[in-house]
């Protein structure tokens, strides 16, 4: 791009048929612009781009970009979960305990079957339960419908 300095380039699609090149405006270094180039060995612009960046680097930049995009997305999910109270920092005791109270007081209708099943598996894996011979108590634990019920039974082992 005239009057611009090449910064980097990457593919824009999985088929790798189009490239996005990033440029910095020489007359205003705060301005960056994109140009798009079709991957065509006969295309002058594609040939010129390959004078600035190798095909290997294009592939590498694309992988790095997609990986960064995923990392940013994962971080975004964490931020949303934190804002909505679905993400608890286990090192923050006050928040953890606050969340624990909410879970213990959930009614049966509010509890997801899969979640309480995972909770019971964790309880059964604890030596205090796994080493116990009390079959009746274990059977009651299996039938428990709420978190608080599980905790109450756990305290009896």
């Amino acid at each position: 791009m005239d009057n611009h300095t090449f910064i980097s380039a990457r593919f824009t699609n999985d088929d790798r048929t189009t490239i996005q090149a990033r440029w910095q405006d020489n007359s205003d270094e705060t301005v960056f612009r994109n140009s798009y180039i079709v991957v065509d060995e006969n295309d002058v612009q594609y040939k010129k781009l390959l004078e600035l960046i190798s095909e290997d680097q294009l592939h590498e930049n694309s992988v790095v970009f997609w990986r960064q995009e995923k990392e940013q997305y994962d971080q975004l999910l964490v931020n949303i979960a934190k804002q909505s109270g679905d993400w608890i920092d286990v090192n923050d005791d006050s928040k953890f305990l606050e969340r624990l109270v909410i879970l213990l007081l959930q009614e049966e209708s509010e509890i997801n079957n899969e979640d309480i099943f995972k909770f019971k598996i964790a309880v059964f894996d604890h030596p205090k339960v796994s080493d116990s011979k009390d079959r009746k108590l274990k059977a009651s634990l299996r039938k428990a419908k709420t978190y608080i019920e599980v905790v109450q039974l756990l305290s009896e082992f």
Partner: protein
Amino acid sequence: MAVVHPLYYSSGNLRKISPSQLSDQQDYGTKLWGKATYRGTDLAYQAAGNLRRIQDTRDIASVEESNVTSFANNTASLGNTVDEGASTDWDYINQSTGTFSITGLNYPVYRTSSGDFQIMSYQDVIDTFVDQIVSNLVDGTDRGGLYSISTNETTYADHILLNASPIFTDQQFDKSIHGGVTSTTQMDILSLSSTDLPVDIESYYLWRKDEETAGSFERPLYWTGTDFRRYTAAEWETFLGTLLGYISVNETGHRVRYEVEATGTDTYAIPSYITKATMGTAMVNTTLASQVRINDQDGANAYKSQRLPTGASETNTTYTLKIYRF
């Protein structure tokens, strides 16, 4: 094909121009394209332009489902987002050709292999000058008088912006409304004002490169009817420029035109046997690659669910402004 070597005057002698001097004249002729007077083909920003339209497509949200009991009750009837469910045609590039009169022009003189003086024919001018000039114009180099596409919206050195409005803007569904989530999430964003909520991703503008400064070259001689005379600078410019304009508009194989090509879902191609080149940046029509279900409980008895576009960009169609000869 008959490339001839016109004569020029040098220190009291008539000499035929060398291949290198002929190349200088062809370069000069190529730069004449930068002058509006001799430019055979022009583009303009104009509604309902005659070049092929560029299409922006966007994924749109599903129809919202709602009930008074639970989000789960929406699942069976909840539809998917619609790939490219909305579109906007961008039809703003208009092509026009000039009108040129080639009567009354004095053609250059050359010497035949048998030593006779001969006035160049119209076809000799094509073969000697214009054929190479047209090849230069369609080789993909950004030259004076040629049009190209850029994402620059205001300043572009040595170029003039045809219109402050873009000739194409790529839009996508505005995923910022849900933060780009890709797994089912409960958010207070439903109901949407529309299933099509576009946001600008990239805009493209039509530019023309300014006239470039011509290099030096030898002006040839022409026959007045009684003697040889060296073209003045103005005479040679008029002669070569007028013929270039006329031939680039009218002569098969030497006509210069523009068109919008496309690869992807909206494919359109100039036949592969035609010499063509991309002018400026390609233009990409992108959409989002996936969808996400959003649940929103509005009040005690309104369980709303809707699928919205999300995910990474995917390129549906790549458009290019092509210059070509035919």
